[in-house]
Every structure is written in structure tokens, then in C-alpha cells.
């Protein structure tokens, strides 16, 4: 598959680059003429936005705060930016025999930026606090796997306990985690920033701390000029595997990505988040070899309102497959989206562990004749008309229209976009299950494992199951996968669950997101991970 080979190429390129810098140091990169002497204390700027919440690890869900938190904190594990594989950081080892009871051993020598050591209690206290309803943390449900979560975070009302029974501190370097049931990939979840440790000082005044955070990550907090910039500096006592190769980062605020792009081209900004749509067509020629174009762990779907009677029944799966087949993904990604997306052939983004090319099968291949035939065989679409609900503030109009056009031409089904003024309005409608036929949905990975793309989106009653899809087979495979003894086995079993999606087609996978970005002449060795974040610690600032 085109997608698979492309992703592999990127991974290989990143691996080679990392290997080259690791062994060669300052003398590396002979092949790249633009490389120059590096200033290890140099800082660089990065396009960002004002965090929506105070800077607390369990409170950052959007990118503005999330990326700053990621640079300030390091949890038990993280993901190798080149391969996406799990890698121990503060954890020496995490052991389990039944996927339900875990024993964590910490490395010694880790300290917070205020000099206090990172201990088992730093984690247990942080998690207990983050899970508590009273703390008001956006990411608190990340702790819901842990036994005793209900006591600190009941469905309604005030918590009845301060701590979760599933967390026990053994000594300074050991603690145990007991889950409510087996979750074979729990370690993968632990890489999420919500599971970061917190120093003692945090708990005296979490709100104040949120304006002036003290973490244990590769960078320490310097200043936060609201709506302007957040500055962090390399932490020289950092004990992790990814020591910063630069002196620090300035997260510079932009309200319009066009402005950021202009600054990048003129070297007033060093690393871009994403190229704005208007400049997509020309950014590769503007930036030359400083342009970035690689796969990301995110997918764009259109989902069916499976809760509507119109879409129920066995035959309707054929109609859904037919509609999927009627979409010319190749052409739309190339023209309408300026090559900023990659056609999808499964429900899992490449780069995630367990991604299997082509699970969508023929249904994701453009075949207008077959599409029409399937739609007819399945009894057609009610009133021969479908609508796609989307938010008009996110630049989706163009591709929704193109998708509808493609469907209309191939199958004769009338298809129109149904724009809602903004993201909040469309989410409201989707959450209340008031969509009539179809809706735009997307998923950005929380961790690079196929379970995250499947269980959390298509499991019965799952929080992000916008389609209202419910399949006994899918749930059975998922439950089995969660009990597996190894992550490899889990990933494999989830592939079987994914095969069920191909049969039922509750959502049509359209394309994977790509990181379309770039960097200035002031920096080099800028790589992006599958989350679409630059590998901040690897960025090298050239000497002036």
C-alpha cells in the first residue's frame, strides 16, 4: 500500500537521522549542506496558542497547554519519537502477570526542578489528586481504570474518599497499581501527560502552581506572559533518556496561522505547528528541504447515525459500504486538500502499533459502479438523500462538498453538507444523538496503539462513540484483547475487532492527517513524532 510504504520511509528516515546525530555529535550530518555548528544553549521559538487551563498535567487536553506540559513533565514511560515504541523514563520497570496488578519500580536520580526527588509518592499523590472530582481536572477520567476511582470521582455528588484504593506506595522507589479489570495496554496509557508526577509543593496551592509549574521534565518553566508567550529552559539535572540538545523553547502565541507562516518564512519563528490552508500549495517551494510532510496518528471519518432506524438492519451495512466506495479519496486528498492528507485504508492510523494496512478492504477503494450496485442491493438510502453534519469553523466545508459530490456522482444519492456555525454547536448535536444521517468525526491518538482508535471510538457506550455503534462481536474481541498478557497480543486481537468494523461500516474512514510543517534557517534536526509534535529535545539551534 502507498500509505504503508510512505510511513515506513518516514520512520526509516527519522531512525537514520537519530542514529547519525547520536554517534557523530557535532560532526554529524555531512550529507546536509545546511547543517552548521550548533549552539547547545541556543533557544528556539515554536508556534503555539494560549493554554485554556492552568498548567497542571491532568488539565491539558488542547495543544496550547499540552505541549508546554509535555516539555515540563516526564512520566513513568514515554514513546520513542522515531518508532512510537514504549520507552521507560522514570520507571525502571513496570511488572505484571495478570494485566490487572502492576508493580512499578522507579529509577533513582530523578529530581523535580525545585531539587526535590521524584518518589513513588510523587506519582500516587498526583494521580489521586488528578482523579478527584474536586480538583476539576479535564483529564480525570484517565484514572478510571484504577480500582477505587469511583470513590474519588463518583458519577454524581461529592467524592467519598481522598485516595484510590488501587494505588499503594511500598517505599520511595516502589508502588503498586491495581486496576478494576485487566487492561493489557495500561502501560501505553501511562505515557499520557495526565500520569505525570507532582512535587510536594504543588498540593499547597494547585491554582498558583498552575501559573508557575515545577515539573521533572527536560525543560523547566521560566515565564508565562499571558496571550503572548511561554518560555521554558533546558533543565541541566534532567535524568531522562532525551536530554535537550538546545537551551530552551519559547512557545509563541499566534491567533492566526497565516501570521505564523509569514514569520517562519522570514526566520522570525523557528518551528511551525501546521501550515495554514492558504499556504499549503506553496509551502514546499517556499521552504525547500525545511518543509515537513509526514504521517500523523490521527484520522478523519464520517460516521453514520447508527441510532436512527434508517441505518439499522443487516442490509444497511451494504449501503454504508457502497457509500464508502463512492468516495474518491485519492483525488480529494490530492486536489481539495492539497496533499495534506493521506487516503485511509483502515480505522487505525499508520504509526500506531497494530495498524494493519487495508483492513477496510475494497470498501475504501473508489469503485463507482460497485458502489451504486451495493447501495441498490442494500435497499438504498431513505428519501435517497443524506446530509453530513460538520462544523464550518474548521475548514471542513471544501472536503465535505467534495465527498458529497463524489457520492452523488457515483451512486445518484443526493448528498449535502449540513454546516453548523462552530465546533461546539456541532458537538452538541452529535452528543445529543440528534444527527439524521451522517456526521464528521475524527480521532487523534492519545497513545500510539490500535486499541485507542478502536475501543475508545467503537466500543458499545464508549465515550467517543458518536455513531452509537454497538456490536456484540466487536465488544467480545475488545474484551478479549484487554485481557491479553502482552501488548503484541492485544494489538493482534484488536485487529480482529477492526475486521468487524469492515463488515458493519459504522464509520467511513476517509484519510489520515499529516504533519505539514516546516522550520526556519536558525534550526536543524527538526523531527516530528506521530502526535504531530516536534521532538523538542532534538532540535538543534545553529550558531549565529
Amino acid at each position, binding site marked *: 500500500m502507498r500509505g504503508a510504504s510512505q510511513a515506513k520511509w518516514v520512520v526509516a528516515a527519522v531512525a537514520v537521522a537519530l542514529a547519525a546525530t547520536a554517534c557523530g555529535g557535532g560532526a554529524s550530518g555531512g550529507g546536509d549542506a545546511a547543517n552548521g555548528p550548533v549552539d547547545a544553549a541556543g533557544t528556539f521559538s515554536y508556534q503555539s496558542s*494560549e*493554554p*485554556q*487551563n*492552568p498548567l497542571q498535567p491532568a488539565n491539558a*487536553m*488542547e495543544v496550547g497547554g499540552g505541549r508546554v506540559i509535555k516539555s515540563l513533565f516526564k512520566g513513568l514511560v514515554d514513546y520513542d519519537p522515531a518508532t512510537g515504541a514504549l520507552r521507560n523514563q522514570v520507571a525502571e520497570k513496570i511488572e505484571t502477570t495478570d494485566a490487572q496488578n502492576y508493580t512499578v519500580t522507579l529509577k533513582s536520580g530523578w529530581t523535580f526542578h525545585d531539587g526535590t526527588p521524584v518518589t513513588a509518592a510523587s506519582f500516587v499523590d498526583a494521580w489521586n489528586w488528578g482523579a478527584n*472530582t*474536586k480538583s*476539576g*481536572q*479535564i483529564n*480525570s*477520567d484517565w484514572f478510571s481504570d484504577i480500582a477505587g476511582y469511583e470513590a474519588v*470521582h*463518583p*458519577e*454524581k455528588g461529592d467524592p467519598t474518599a481522598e485516595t484510590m484504593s488501587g494505588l499503594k506506595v511500598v517505599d520511595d522507589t516502589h508502588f503498586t497499581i491495581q486496576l478494576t479489570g485487566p487492561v493489557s495496554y495500561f502501560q501505553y496509557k501511562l505515557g499520557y501527560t495526565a500520569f505525570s508526577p507532582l512535587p510536594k509543593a504543588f498540593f499547597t496551592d494547585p*491554582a498558583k502552581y*498552575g501559573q508557575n509549574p515545577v515539573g521533572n521534565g527536560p525543560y523547566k518553566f521560566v515565564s508565562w506572559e*499571558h*496571550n*503572548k508567550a511561554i518560555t521554558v529552559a533546558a533543565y541541566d539535572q534532567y535524568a531522562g533518556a532525551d536530554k535537550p540538545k538546545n537551551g530552551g523553547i519559547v512557545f509563541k*502565541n*499566534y*491567533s*492566526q496561522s*497565516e*501570521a*505564523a507562516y*509569514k*514569520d517562519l*518564512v*522570514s526566520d*522570525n519563528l523557528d518551528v511551525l505547528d501546521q501550515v495554514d490552508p492558504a499556504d499549503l500549495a506553496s509551502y514546499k517551494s517556499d521552504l525547500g528541504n525545511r518543509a515537513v510532510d509526514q504521517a500523523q496518528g490521527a484520522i478523519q471519518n464520517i460516521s453514520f447515525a447508527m441510532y436512527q432506524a434508517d441505518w439499522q438492519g443487516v442490509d444497511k451495512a451494504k449501503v454504508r459500504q457502497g457509500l464508502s466506495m463512492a468516495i474518491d479519496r485519492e483525488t480529494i486528498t490530492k486536489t481539495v486538500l492539497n496533499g495534506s492528507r493521506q487516503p485511509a485504508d483502515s480505522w487505525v492510523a499508520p504509526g500506531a502499533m497494530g495498524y494493519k494496512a487495508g483492513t477496510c478492504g475494497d470498501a475504501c477503494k473508489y469503485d463507482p459502479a460497485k458502489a451504486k450496485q451495493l447501495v441498490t442491493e442494500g435497499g438504498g438510502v431513505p428519501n435517497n438523500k443524506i446530509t453530513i453534519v460538520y462544523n464550518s469553523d474548521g475548514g471542513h466545508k471544501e472536503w465535505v462538498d467534495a465527498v458529497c459530490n463524489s457520492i452523488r456522482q457515483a451512486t445518484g444519492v443526493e448528498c449535502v453538507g449540513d454546516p*453548523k*456555525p*462552530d*465546533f*461546539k*454547536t456541532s*458537538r*452538541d448535536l452529535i*452528543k445529543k444523538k440528534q444527527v439524521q444521517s451522517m456526521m464528521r*468525526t*475524527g*480521532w*487523534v491518538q492519545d497513545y500510539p496503539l490500535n486499541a485507542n482508535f478502536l475501543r475508545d471510538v467503537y466500543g458499545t457506550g464508549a*465515550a*467517543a462513540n458518536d455513531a452509537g455503534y454497538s456490536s456484540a462481536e466487536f465488544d467480545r474481541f475488545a474484551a478479549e484483547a484487554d485481557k491479553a498478557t502482552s501488548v503484541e497480543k492485544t494489538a493482534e486481537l484488536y485487529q480482529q475487532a477492526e475486521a468487524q468494523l469492515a463488515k458493519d461500516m459504522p464509520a467511513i474512514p476517509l484519510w489520515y492527517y499529516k504533519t505539514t510543517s516546516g522550520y526556519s534557517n536558525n534550526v536543524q534536526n527538526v523531527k516530528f513524532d506521530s502526535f504531530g509534535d516536534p521532538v523538542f529535545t532534538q532540535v538543534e539551534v545553529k550558531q549565529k
Partner: protein
Amino acid sequence: MGRFVARRLLQMIPVFVGTTTLIFFMVRVLPGDPVAAMWGDKAPDPAQLAAFKHRMGLDKSMIQQYLDYMGNLLTGDFGQTMAGRKVIDVIGEALPVTMRLALLAFAIELVLGVAIGLFAGLRRGKSFDKGTLLFTLLLISIPVPVLGFIFQNVFATNLGWVTPTVQNSENLGQLLLPAVVLGSLSLAYVARLTRTSIVENVKADYMRTAVAKGLPRRKVIGTHLLRNSMIPVVTFLGTDLGALMGGAIVTEGIFNVKGVGNALYHAINLKEGATVSGFVVVLVLVYLAASLIVDLLYAVLDPRIRYA
């Protein structure tokens, strides 16, 4: 005069209450739930959602929220953003920046606009006058975003005189380019208004009298002609100051200036009722103050206009 000012100040109260009430409800009846949207594509955690709304007071009835808001406003408390910052702090950071930008734009349009209008009016029908009419027509017809991008490309990308966006929003020199863009539309109006006014007044009786008295030309034009011609211009400038403050959203976006426009844009995106209302309250005050000053200036410019 004193009574006039007092009456005007009293009139401000209902205007102030009316506008703040309107904006309060307008922001809050927008569809979509700002708190639930904090979870993005993910389903909000119901317990957390309820706790958050309770903390923000969003679980009370709309009327109760309104009364709370207005009550707090009287004590100078503008409420909190969803991120837990005081709205007054957010305003305090953004307002001076926009004030600087707006005043710079205002100075440009005032000085250049009046000067161009004066010369064009005195040389009616000559090539400078025709050029002015053409040039101002051009300015009026180019939308601000287009002008912004043209300036950005010409002066930053091609000529390299300035950086494409403002690197330090406190630096007056860097604000010059966005100020020109922001003030250009009004500059055109000011120039045209001044020109027309001059053309009308130049033939007035008092002008003939002034010339007949043998007054020097500078005095004829400066004290007699210009002063009498400024009344419509001042009216326009007064309301324009408010428009400049609030209308900088586009310009501030293009040049990444960290002022009111930027903050307001961010707040509207997040549907932060308290922040949006807070900014509007301040803008209303600016408008009211500006229109009061305009009314007072009438008396200075033309003593025939009596108050009291």
C-alpha cells in the same frame, strides 16, 4: 456647560446598562456549550462537567447569572475566564496595546487626513485634488485584510524593512505598519470630509470678511476656515476612535498584535461569556467617553452651538 456635562454623564447610565445587558444575553444564547467543548472530540466527564459549571456559576438560571454579573460589575469585578484568570487582568494586558495602536492610527488619520483634505480643498479641481479623490477612493474600496496582506508582503517580505508580524506589541515603532493599515480607511474618510467642508466654507461670508480685514493667509486658513470646517470631521473622528479600538480584530490578527482584538477573538472562539462581556463593557465606555468629548468640542469649535 457644567449642567450639560452632568446631563450627558447621567444619560450614559441607561446606555451603559442597556448595552451590557444586551451583550450579556447575546453571548449566552449562542448555541453550543463552552464547558463541554473543553473536552474537544471526547465526551465530557459528567461529574467534572457539573462541578465545573457549578464553580463557574453556569448552573444558575440565566436571570440569576445576569444579576450576579451586573452586581459584580458595579464593584469592579469582571468575573473570571474559564482558565481561572481574572477578566480584568486580561483586559488590563490587552487594552494598553490596542490603545497605543488605535491612538497611533488615530494620529495618522487625523494629521494626514486633515492635511490632505485641506490642500485638496484649497486646490479644488487641480491635479492634487483629483489625485486625492482617486487615492481615497482606492483606500475605501480595498478591504482591510487585503490591505494588510499587501503591506505585509511589500514592506516585510519584499523590502525587508520590518518583520511580517509585530514581535513586541509594546514597541511603538513596530506598531507603525499595523497602525497605517488600521487607520487607512478612516484616513480616506477624514480627507474627503475635510475636503468637502473646506470647499463649502472657502466661499463663506466670514472668509471674505477675514480676507478683507487683511489677515495673514495662515490665520485666515488656520483659525477661520479650518476651525469651521472641522465640525463634521470631529464628529466622525469621535466615533471612529471607538471603532478603531474594537475594529482592530482583523488587523491585530494579521500582524499578531496582542491587543483587544486578539483577546476578543480568542474569547469568542472559546465562547467565554465573561471575557467577551468584559471587553464590550470597556469598549462601550470608550465610545461614550469619545462621544462626550465630541460634543464638548463642538462648543470649542463653534461658540454659536449653545448648551444648557
